[in-house]
């Protein structure tokens, strides 16, 4: 029992170590991958632009829910004028980057893992190596870079739609004053400590999610079952990593 547990702990540690080494290899392959800039653009299209619909829909609904819930809570204290401030701060600092990263892991991370995993299972990566094309530079690094580029942009779109949703609920539906909503927001939200803080977070989350997705796909067992497990692990590990990293980053960026 304890031996089995020890081997499982050892396996988890080995995974983390392998992931760290993979990151180093990936960074080393990144300059070479810049020659395949077109591939990176294609991945930005695939992971970023194609995720826009789900990000925008979810952003709108998260904003609307925040508007409703915080209106209820603030009305207890008679402070509904602060709705815009509270919604925008919670979106910029916390919910925007985190929810976008979780959606991104589900929408784009899984497809990265499955695609690379199938390439591995069908020996396409080995074929590339035989043709002297580095699969790290041609397959892995462009997806990694695309994730880092796409995540902050998606988080910004998410935030903007969230503010729009909260405005829709607070001002158009619950009858809050439009000027109060905006002026309280603009007087307490700061560009550097709030908006840019969220951008740093989403950059880090984009790197973590796409690193895990690419790593899981690259090191998958070359069977259909292995690809299925790798896809599941991508979602589980990147969700845990995003939420844990979020705590650490919040503590440091405060």
């Amino acid at each position, binding site marked *: 029992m304890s031996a089995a547990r020890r081997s499982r702990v050892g396996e988890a540690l080995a995974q983390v170590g392998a992931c760290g080494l993979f990151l180093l290899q990936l960074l080393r392959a990144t300059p070479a991958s810049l020659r395949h800039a*077109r591939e990176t*653009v*294609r991945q*930005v*299209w695939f992971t*970023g*632009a194609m995720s*826009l619909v789900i990000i925008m829909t979810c952003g709108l609904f998260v904003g609307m829910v925040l508007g409703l819930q915080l209106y209820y809570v*603030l009305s207890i*204290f*008679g*402070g509904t*004028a*602060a709705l815009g401030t509270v919604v*925008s701060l919670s979106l*910029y600092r916390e919910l925007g980057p985190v929810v976008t990263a979780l959606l991104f892991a589900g929408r784009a991370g899984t497809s990265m893992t499955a695609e690379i995993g199938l390439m591995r299972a069908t020996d396409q990566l080995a074929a590339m190596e035989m043709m002297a094309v580095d699969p790290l530079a041609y397959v892995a690094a462009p997806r990694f870079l695309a994730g880092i*580029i*796409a995540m*902050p*942009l*998606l988080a*910004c*779109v998410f*935030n*903007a739609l969230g*503010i729009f949703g909260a405005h829709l609920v607070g001002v158009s539906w619950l009858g809050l004053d439009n000027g*109060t909503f*905006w*002026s*309280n*927001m*603009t*007087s*307490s*939200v*700061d*560009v550097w400590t*709030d*908006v*840019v803080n969220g*951008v740093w977070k989403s950059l880090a989350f984009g790197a973590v999610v796409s690193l895990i997705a690419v790593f899981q796909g690259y090191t998958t067992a070359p069977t259909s079952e292995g690809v299925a497990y790798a896809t599941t692990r991508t979602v589980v590990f990147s969700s845990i990593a995003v939420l844990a990293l979020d705590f650490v980053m919040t503590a440091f960026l405060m």
Partner: protein
Amino acid sequence: MTQQRRSYQIGTGLFILLGFAALAYLATQTTSVANFSQGPSYRLVARFTNIGQLKLRAPVKMAGVRIGSVEAIELDPEKLDAIVRVSIDRRYASIPDDSSAAIFTSGLLGDQYVGVQPGGSPDVFKDGDEFVLTQSSMQLEDLIGKFLVNGSPSKPGDDAGKAADAPSAPPQTQH
């Protein structure tokens, strides 16, 4: 194939543009950057014994309308009171020079702002002028302290006295 490649490149460009547009919108329209006045302005000085929670770039309002913002807050090293420098939009150049400034709170949880009550003087404020009449921010602690020191305000005797005074009060103010 090239047609398809072209279309996703354009799409990616549009996506990146949309992302940066969203970032620019968030940064300029929903943060304190939106409060920087663009037009020309002039400065006034107000001295307060206590500014409470007044912050830099807090709004300056007259009749509830934003006319400027707080530019600097410092302590006078000799008189030991707070010097608040405000910049007023040049459009509002005809503020009487006996107007008074006070620090108010917007709502229960809102931020504090400087409110200007217009006076009746024919002369107007010029750049660098100082408010003669100011009223510091209301400190909740002071109010509670006063309330505790004065005791319960609803003594029967007090009430009777007020009630007796009340009818005669309006004629007194008319004299």
